[in-house]
């Protein structure tokens, strides 16, 4: 660990006071202060998010939409207010375009099961990329097996960027381009406005997996030019159990419903049913109500930081991490993805001296340092890179250069341990 005071000043966010809002970060692991570097898998929850959920459950909880009594009205208002906050946060033109789901995975499956099932058949093409998370591959594979359309993948180049030279040919005949905004392995930020424009020019619509971008940088769905955008609450300081699908209302209106049940119907007879209007058409059964309240609180916290500053903070950490790890380990440590800190999201997947990522993560844990090891739900990408797994450190609003130093120190200890 570097001596106190050597931490680089990060002017963009007051991390000391932010950190105090996250009780879990006071914890010790094997006697060492926890260094949480796994926010790309899931973020920790600040005080105000936990409090908002707790207070709501203690004062205004009831099932929503179906009651006229005061508490039910309050609960409904809270739930619908969360929807408006999400819409505002991502620049959605209309709150009715915001559908709550369980997680981003369900959001993508919803589109595949409804838009996909209604629009895709033999001869059609869906284009994805080699850097997608399984959540943005498997639903399309399942549907392709059933419907007989073709699935194509934009390749990844040696620097971890999408190889767009042949984009026109790949998009030829495509009805859908489904692409991640930021790779959860490579940290590459894709040029979505350009990709979406190319998709539209080819007559395709564009779904954006914004799981790694919405929590970490300003995202405006209109600026992206996307038709669908998905993300999860738990990666953006919010609770588990809630995710978001944003979609253009004309598309959502034309889609058949997904799951059947309460709330998504206008009428049910023994011989059939008619569908409710947006957004409820896609929200079957009792939704994650308390979680919506928590998500709204998380958005409030992020807005209070300012997403520009969140992004600036992470870029500074990128810069510090690339320099520190490069200086200390040289060629022994390979960080995957673009080499420019500005072009990267706030994470670094690396291979280290032939030590298996699993073993790295295990030894790091002994030092209190939490990193993920594995394929990060991106096995096709792993195969492209010719590796089985990486270790991945990822940072967020509560991380500092001290945390990067702790990572580097623990890596040095790992190297020593396995070379004994």
């Amino acid at each position, binding site marked *: 660990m570097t001596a106190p005071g050597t931490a680089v000043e990060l002017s963009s966010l007051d991390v000391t006071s932010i950190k105090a809002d996250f009780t879990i970060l006071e914890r010790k692991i094997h006697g060492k202060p926890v260094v949480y570097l796994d926010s790309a898998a899931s973020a920790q929850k600040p005080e105000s998010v936990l409090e908002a959920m707790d207070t709501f459950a203690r004062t205004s909880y009831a099932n929503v939409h179906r009651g006229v009594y005061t508490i039910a009205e309050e609960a409904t208002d809270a739930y619908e207010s969360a929807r408006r906050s999400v819409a505002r946060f991502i620049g959605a033109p209309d709150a009715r375009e915001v559908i709550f789901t369980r997680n981003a995975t369900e959001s993508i499956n919803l589109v595949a099961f409804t838009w996909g099932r209604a629009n895709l058949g033999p001869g059609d093409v869906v284009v994805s990329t080699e850097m997608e998370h399984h959540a943005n591959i498997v639903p399309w594979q399942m549907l392709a097996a059933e419907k007989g359309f073709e699935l194509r993948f934009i390749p990844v180049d040696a620097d971890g960027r999408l190889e767009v030279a042949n984009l026109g040919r790949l998009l030829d005949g495509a009805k859908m381009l489904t692409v991640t905004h930021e790779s959860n392995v490579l940290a590459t930020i894709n040029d979505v406005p350009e990709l979406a424009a190319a998709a539209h020019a080819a007559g395709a619509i564009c779904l954006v997996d914004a799981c790694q971008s919405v929590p970490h940088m300003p995202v405006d769905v209109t600026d992206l030019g996307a038709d669908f955008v998905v993300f999860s609450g738990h990666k953006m300081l919010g609770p588990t159990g809630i995710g978001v699908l944003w979609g253009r209302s004309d598309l959502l209106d034309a889609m058949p419903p997904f799951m059947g049940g309460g709330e998504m119907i*206008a009428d049910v007879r023994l011989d059939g049913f*008619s569908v409710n209007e947006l957004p409820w058409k896609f929200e079957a059964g009792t939704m994650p109500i308390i979680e919506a309240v928590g998500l709204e609180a998380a958005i409030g916290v992020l807005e209070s930081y300012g997403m520009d500053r969140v992004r600036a903070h992470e870029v500074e950490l990128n810069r510090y991490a690339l320099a520190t790890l490069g200086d200390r380990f040289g060629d022994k440590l390979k960080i995957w993805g673009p080499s420019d800190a500005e072009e990267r999201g706030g994470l670094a997947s690396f291979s280290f001296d032939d030590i298996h990522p699993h073993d790295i993560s295990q030894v790091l844990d002994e030092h209190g340092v939490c990193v993920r090891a594995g394929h990060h739900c991106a096995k096709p990408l792993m195969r492209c890179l010719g590796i089985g797994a990486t270790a991945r450190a990822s940072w967020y609003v509560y991380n500092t250069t001290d945390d990067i130093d702790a990572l580097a120190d623990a890596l040095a200890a790992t190297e020593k341990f396995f070379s004994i």
Partner: protein
Amino acid sequence: MSRLEDLYKEVILDHYRNPRCRGELPVPPATMAEGFNPLCGDEITVYVEVEDDRLARIRIAGRGCSISSSSASMMAETLEGCSLAEVGERIAMFNTLMSVHEASLDHDGLDADGLPADDGAPMVDDDALGDLVALRGVLRYPRRIKCATLGWTTLTKALAEAN
């Protein structure tokens, strides 16, 4: 009970107990539309017969709560015999009155009493509304706004059928 009496004004209870223009019309020449309130299960059917650009006859069938029944009853009483242009104006005016509904996903603009705040609130002339002004109290009860508008949106659909 003053809150309650604000919602259940005397004129509302009167229309609820003695609904005007109840019944059905033969289709054709009339057209009809059905409306549902998914919240409470209310169903309403609105029959309209247009002659010479006038809403010559209007009948309401189905069941509803006091708010939806009385709103539909007042609507029918007010509009029967009006020119289609007037009908359109009245519908627009009512929609404005209830526009918290249309923006029910965005009703931030309520004051502490739950009534639309002065700024940005829909301004509708009480005189032009007549009895319908009694429905203003519904705005305090956002979930009941769908009750108040059910007849009106169903009428709009029935008129669309007539074209």
